[in-house]
């Protein structure tokens, strides 16, 4: 008797509780995503939208001009990501390690100061750094002059060879607070007992960090890396705020986000092409998907976890 009731009863409360999230997520994420994928298969000919299959992708990867722009943007994007991974992770670990030092004074102040840029708008960050680095009004040339290193100054944002690195470092400056907090939290969660056990075995100071703490915070670093990867390959705002949609000088800061924006919405005399833009967006989606999959199946599953 009880069994039949249990089997036939649909547990409505689950549906009700899930519905808001599912509906909202479907409306603002899943539907637009699939519609973008669909839009990439169309083209507009004489004011009429026609189905063209994979033509947009053939143009994107086959046409000399389009493919050159695409590979340039992708290459810049990898560069942007690698600078983030290296500098942001190292700085994050360093800052977290310093912050977890028990005798550090004003720790709260440092945490706030380092974390505040994260909550600033990209527009403010882009504009502020443009002014700081400006050869005309900026404080960067004056500061270098004050310590006698004026010769090191260059108009970084205006030079092809430095602009992407400069913007990547600005972005690192903005977001370094997040890895710092996550790694700090991971460091705090290491039980005292483990460290004390290490001390008894003679592992102290720096080697305690390398041999005990670092392996224990590796999963956090993995998560941070994958978040950075997704963030970087979706990035657009900082470049747009600092260099405009043409991602100058000479496309040296062009990443997939700015390339997609330019194509989708058009720029100056170039009319927008939503279908080609969707094709680029689809390529971005695929790249991020592949990256995340490599991480999930190649790295995450092999990562060793420690239970205490």
């Amino acid at each position, binding site marked *: 008797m009880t069994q039949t009731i249990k089997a036939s009863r649909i547990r409505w409360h689950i549906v009700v509780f899930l519905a808001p999230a599912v509906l909202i997520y479907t409306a603002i994420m899943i539907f637009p995503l699939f519609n973008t994928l669909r839009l990439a298969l169309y083209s507009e000919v004489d004011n009429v939208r026609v189905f063209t299959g994979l033509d947009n992708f053939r143009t994107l990867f086959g046409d*000399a001009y389009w493919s050159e722009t695409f590979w340039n943007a992708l290459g810049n994007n990898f560069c942007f990501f690698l600078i983030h991974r290296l500098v942001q992770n190292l700085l994050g670990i360093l800052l977290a390690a310093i912050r977890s030092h028990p005798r550090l004074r004003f720790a709260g102040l440092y945490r706030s100061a380092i974390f505040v840029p994260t909550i600033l708008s990209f527009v403010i960050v882009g504009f502020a750094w443009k002014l700081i680095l400006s*050869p*005309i009004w900026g404080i960067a040339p004056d500061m270098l002059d004050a310590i006698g290193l004026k010769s090191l100054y260059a*108009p970084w944002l*205006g030079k092809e060879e430095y602009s992407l690195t400069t913007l990547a470092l600005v972005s690192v400056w903005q977001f370094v607070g997040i890895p710092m907090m996550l790694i700090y939290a991971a460091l705090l969660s290491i039980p005292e007992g483990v460290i004390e056990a290490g001390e008894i075995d003679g592992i102290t100071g720096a080697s305690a960090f390398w041999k005990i703490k670092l392996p224990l915070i590796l999963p956090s670093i993995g998560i941070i890396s994958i978040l950075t990867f997704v963030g970087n390959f979706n990035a657009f705002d900082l470049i747009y705020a600092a260099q405009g949609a043409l991602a*100058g*000088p*000479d496309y040296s800061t062009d990443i997939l986000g700015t390339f997609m924006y330019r194509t989708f919405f058009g*720029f100056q005399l170039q009319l927008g092409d939503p279908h080609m833009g969707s094709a680029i967006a689809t390529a971005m989606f695929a790249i991020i998907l592949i990256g995340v999959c490599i991480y999930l199946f190649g790295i995450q599953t092999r990562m060793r976890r420690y239970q205490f």
Partner: protein
Amino acid sequence: MQTKTIGLALLTTTMLSGMAMAQDVTLTIESWRNDDLTLWQDTIIPAFEAENPGIRVVFSPSAPAEYNAVLNSKLDAGSAGDLITCRPFDASLALYDAGHLADLSDLGGMANFSDVAKSAWQTDDGSATFCVPMASVIHGFIYNADAFAELGLTAPTTEAEFFAVLDAIKADGSYIPMAMGTNDQWEAATMGYNNIGPNYWKGEEGRLALIAGEQSLTDPQWVAPYATLARWADYLGDGYEAQTYPDSQNIFTLGRAAIYPAGSWEISGFNAQADFEMGAFRAPVQNAGDECYISDHTDIAMGLNAASPNAEAARVFLYWMGTSEFASIYANALPGFFSLSNHSVAMEDPLAQEFVSWRDECHSTIRSTYQILSRGTPNLENETWGASVAAIKGTSSPEDLGAALQAGLASWYAPQQ
């Protein structure tokens, strides 16, 4: 009780205005020039309504960056105003092709405009004109007249004089010779290449030959301006690579630079900001006595919504826009935006007078990349920005730039293949 009275009052006003509307025709203007709202409300519309009783005009602008998108959706939904402010070239041509703009070729006032003025709002074969030209902007150089007087310099007319003046300012050292940066890229193309270029490619002659496929971007007249731009680098301020457009404007109006490669739209802003005397000279010719050409770029026009129920009244307004009265009101209220009509318009601003005087001395042309040639991918206008910057920085030779631009254009434009 209170609310009831107000409600009644509101109802009465609505009915009254409804009755008034029944007699009058109300025209609505779509525009991106929200800066000009007071000008339209206080000056232009009253002048028109005084002469044309029974037609009321409402100016309803939207934000410049959103204008194209807003207008397109309004037109598709059938809720757009009767009169549409037209962007030059392809954006408006697309509206005409989609049947949103009416053909105005037979409008009486059209005879008051030259072919160059109308070219921005015509079909490619010139058979139909769909917007009444309103204003153009002229390129040249604005200079700090006080600085020139102090250094004993006069405005140059030839290229040799131009560089001699720059050398003299540089040697003196108290001013940056020329205020321009390459960070935003467009100034290098718009105020650089398309400012000095028409003297090389002989204005309309070269521009039309390029469109027809008779000249190519690798020809000397199209490459030489890049070589001249390359010489500019020595005279721009330190770190010009990262100098933005507002930086350049501020450097000039603060009196730190002597020459500013300009468009006439700067005039009202500079008048408000600079506290020194300013003068202007046109793009220098190569040899004394050469024919001169200026970039007199068509920028803004007005068209008729093909679906407008008030087409008759709208045509009356568009006809009025071709009269000398409108030309005079518009040009004086917005110095630097010059009427495109053939009427001679008296302007009060001396700098604007200087700019417009070049029209009598030189041949007018528009920016070489705007008509037809920026329709495909790669976009010639955007590529020209990058090329002009590369020329100034010296990262590519003028010949390589010409070849790259030509290859890009030929990849999609049949007459150049």
